[in-house]
């Protein structure tokens, strides 16, 4: 690298002053980021939090000076080691990008070139930036791969991106970013596309690496829990502005801006309960950049908004009196709001009464046949192999209950949903729905009433509604199809009522899906699922693609309607904190098998299945008063084509007993009626395990 690295240590590494960024579109100039200030010293880690559209990625792009053809820095400076990047030439920038400043993106697969080996892509970096020879570059690459804890670096060097798993890909991308020993690392939602247990490994790695290499990091995320785990300082962004910033503990313990409070209210904490302390969604929507209100951008959604004060002037960002020196907030009324006395009125909700059994799954199996057509397979006789997507599932669900199925991708939870909906049929066992076995029946063979009673809310908001039909048409089709109403006027009336129920304006009847936001589409999806008065609704990750505040609102809505209709809800998710919040019973799945079933409290307290324990430890929790025991899983999910013979979790289990785990199916232990754990470890031993999530006691909190 050039010798100007040895600059004055008093000059901060990166200094952003009064940065304004705009995009220019057909609709005119759109201010994406307004008045952004940030200073980072060497080795510091700063988090940028905010919902989509708040401008956090734009800031990262501006630091890279990588704005695209329609974006531009309007005013302000970005100084890297005292030099203004806005005035650098393209050649200077090229030298800095990927060497002094590196960026890691959300999708590892998109960041790697699929037609080159990992090795070639890694070696390219030092060969270009430092003119290293091939051998030296290879050595460096292998060293860095070891640093990012990739097992067997030699094999990874020769592998193409698709030959390694998503977590390994992201590690390779991080290795690539570290190769040039950058002084600043920008991470744009680096773990959002990954599973929780993988995510836990990657975040830990990033924290360790930045210490080891002395790298400063800017960590962009929508997940407050993650930020708490990796950053020292945090900036909360809303609608293009930083609304609050400060040291991580200060901001989490004494947030001052109403939006920061609002965000915390949207996150289900392990201490939260759906009946005693429901989520408090932020009302309204993020204003579009060209429709920002005068004065405080958060004004229209704020409970403490005062007309004539908050909307009368530009709100400056000012240091918070009586707090740590770097704590600043952009709220004109922050002194007047007494957060200790502020208690939003929670709607009182008694726990739901649980009724008769609605769904009973018994030893349900779903195998997919994979036919190998190669000659070798024909000769050896192993032509047909089975993917055991679901193996001996047994659990039940009662009226009014919320049952959650938790597990990482590939655990078979979506396959189960497909079988339940009749898109696939079982290979063995029974699924009794209201007394009749429906496991073997394709949806075409089920009766109209059976279909109507079992409906689904889908995961992807952009996909769940047909873009060619109006919202009204799509809901009324369900009503007519299931024979709830036949008369056109009554059908229409019912659709409008359903729109009221999901809190959408009635003129959405004639809207088309592309005119709706993600949260609104998901609401229509919920209305559609409930249109036929189902007795059971399956929700397959209904909020995982939504922003926190929207997700909170949709989750609350789903529960409210469930309560109203006395519906059984089968909630499929990978997010244990949401699951903890809303479900009564939890089914933990791994590799097609149930590891543990029990009530929510039973799952979250010992005795645990070792896999449940690891999952609990992996969930990021946005509460500094929660202490977690750290359990990191080694290795990858085994292939479903070739699962371990004994316990499916045996290859990664930190509590593995011995060979018995590899060879024999674990027995089912029953610590309490209805609570089942499939494990070889004796129950007594499991009972003695410490809880993973603990609340710090009051005295400790003060210290």
């Amino acid at each position: 690298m050039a010798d100007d690295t040895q600059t004055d240590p008093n000059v901060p590494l990166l200094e952003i002053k009064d940065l304004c960024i705009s995009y220019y579109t057909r609709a005119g100039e759109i201010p994406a980021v307004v008045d952004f200030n940030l200073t980072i010293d060497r080795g510091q880690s700063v988090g940028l939090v905010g919902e989509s559209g708040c401008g956090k990625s734009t800031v990262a792009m501006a630091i890279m000076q990588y704005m695209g053809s329609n974006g531009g820095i309007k005013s302000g400076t970005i100084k890297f080691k005292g030099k203004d990047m806005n005035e650098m030439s393209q050649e200077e920038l090229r030298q800095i990008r990927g060497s002094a400043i590196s960026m890691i993106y959300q999708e590892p697969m998109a960041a790697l070139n699929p037609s080159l080996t990992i090795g070639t892509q890694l070696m390219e970096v030092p060969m270009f930036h430092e003119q290293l020879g091939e051998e030296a570059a290879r050595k460096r690459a292998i060293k860095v791969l070891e640093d990012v804890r990739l097992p067997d670096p030699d094999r990874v060097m020769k592998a193409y991106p698709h030959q390694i798993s998503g977590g390994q890909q992201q590690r390779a991308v991080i290795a690539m970013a570290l190769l040039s020993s950058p002084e600043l690392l920008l991470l744009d939602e680096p773990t959002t596309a990954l599973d929780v247990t993988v995510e836990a490994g990657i975040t830990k790695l990033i924290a360790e690496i930045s210490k080891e290499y002395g790298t400063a990091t800017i960590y962009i995320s929508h997940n407050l829990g993650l930020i708490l785990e990796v950053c020292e300082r945090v900036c909360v962004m809303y609608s293009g502005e930083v609304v609050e910033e400060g040291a991580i503990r200060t901001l989490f313990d004494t947030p001052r801006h109403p939006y920061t409070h609002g965000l915390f209210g949207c996150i289900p904490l392990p201490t939260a309960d759906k009946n005693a302390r429901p989520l408090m969604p932020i009302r309204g929507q993020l204003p579009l950049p060209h429709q920002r209100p005068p004065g405080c951008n958060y004004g229209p959604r704020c409970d403490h908004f005062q007309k004539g004060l908050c909307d009368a002037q530009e709100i400056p960002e000012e240091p918070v009196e009586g707090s740590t020196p770097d704590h600043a907030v952009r709220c004109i009324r922050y002194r007047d709001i007494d957060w200790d006395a502020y208690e939003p009125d929670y709607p009182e909700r008694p726990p739901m009464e649980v009724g008769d059994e609605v769904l009973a799954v018994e030893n349900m199996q779903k195998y997919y046949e994979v036919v190998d057509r190669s000659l070798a397979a024909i000769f050896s006789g192993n032509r047909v192999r089975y993917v055991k997507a679901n193996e001996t599932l047994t659990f039940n669900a009662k009226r009014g209950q919320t049952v959650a199925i938790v597990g990482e991708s590939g655990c078979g939870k979506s396959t189960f949903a497909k079988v339940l909906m009749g898109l696939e049929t079982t290979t063995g066992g029974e699924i009794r729905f209201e007394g009749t076995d429906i496991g073997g029946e394709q949806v075409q063979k089920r009766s109209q009433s059976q279909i109507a009673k079992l409906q689904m809310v889908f995961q992807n908001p952009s996909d769940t509604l047909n873009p060619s039909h109006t919202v009204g048409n799509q809901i009324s089709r369900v009503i007519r199809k299931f024979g709830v109403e036949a008369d056109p006027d009554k059908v229409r009336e019912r659709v409008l009522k359903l729109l009221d129920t999901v809190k959408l304006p009635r003129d959405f009847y004639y809207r088309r899906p592309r005119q709706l936001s993600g949260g609104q589409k998901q609401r229509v999806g919920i209305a559609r699922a409930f249109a036929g008065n189902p007795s059971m609704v399956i929700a397959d990750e209904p909020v995982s693609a939504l922003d926190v505040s929207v997700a909170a609102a949709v989750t609350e809505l789903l529960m409210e309607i469930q309560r109203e209709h006395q519906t059984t809800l089968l909630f499929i998710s990978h997010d244990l904190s949401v699951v903890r919040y809303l479900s009564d019973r939890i089914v933990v799945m791994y590799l097609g098998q149930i590891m543990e079933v029990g009530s929510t409290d039973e799952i979250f307290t010992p005795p645990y299945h070792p896999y449940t324990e690891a999952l609990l430890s992996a969930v990021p929790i946005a509460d500094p008063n929660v202490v977690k025991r750290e359990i990191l899983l080694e290795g990858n999910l085994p292939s479903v084509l070739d699962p371990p013979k004994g316990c499916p979790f045996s290859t990664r289990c930190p509590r593995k007993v011995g060979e018995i785990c590899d060879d024999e199916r674990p027995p089912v232990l029953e610590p309490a009626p209805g609570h089942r754990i499939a494990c070889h470890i004796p129950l007594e031993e499991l009972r003695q395990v410490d809880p993973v999530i603990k609340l710090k006691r009051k005295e400790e909190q003060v210290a």
Partner: protein
Amino acid sequence: MSDTTVTPEVAASATPKAPSGSMRFFKSLLLIRESWVGMIGALIVLFWVVVALFAPWLAPFDPLATLQPFAAPGTEFAGNDIAPPGVFYLGTDHLGRDVLSRIIFGSRTVLFYAPIATVTAYTVGIFMGLAAGYIGGWWDEILSMITNIILSFPVLVLYILIITLIGPSGINIIIAITFATGPTVMRIVRGLVLDLKNRDYVAAAQTRGEGSWRIMLVEILPNARGPLIVDACLRLGYVIITIGVLGFLGLGLPPPQPDWGGMINETRSMAMAFPHMTIYPCIAISSLILGFNLLADGLREVSLRD
């Protein structure tokens, strides 16, 4: 909806008004204005459509009448007992027929048969593609097999084969074009369906027990319309070429009906001496094809921008 007794505010909150469907369609067509390439294409196509519609009023002479052979463009015609006096703006052909009038009436042939042939080819192709893509399995194997066999023939050979087998006539041109281009459409539709059938809204329709045909026609097909409309415009151009080629090969409409391809064919031996007989029909064909291609380009541009 025309309940006039309700006060305006109540009506607004209780019964939202439907924007009229035809208005919406018209508006989305007007989006073509955003692409100047598309506008030029649309204007050329519109020009020929107007010419075809008003042919009897626009054409100065009867396209079939033998008036004055080998007249150069711009020759004044004195008039006789067949036709009143006038000017041969584009000259006459070897049989003394007015080239301009024949081009004007020829546009009717092209603009009548080309859209019909395209629509039938699309209908066949869409149904084949939907079945192959959505139902899959043996349907897919068989339909893809048929498609591959048809597409493995050189297209021109296929046309000549079909027309010589069943004889040249308007209907047979349509049949030949459907037979030869249906499979290409089927491939496009099949590809689109394979993508669209994995969407959640299709799963939602399946889980409420909708029939396969309803899913294919109501849930999937409307979402494939963007690429299909663009392709249809392009294909309309190809079909016009095909009709021209068939006319040129003498496999088009039987004479003496005015047909652009036929006009070129009949006069090509005299093209060096009397270029006007050949060149003007050539320009007519090219401009119309250009119009459709530009229109397709414009539609694609506009549809990608959304």
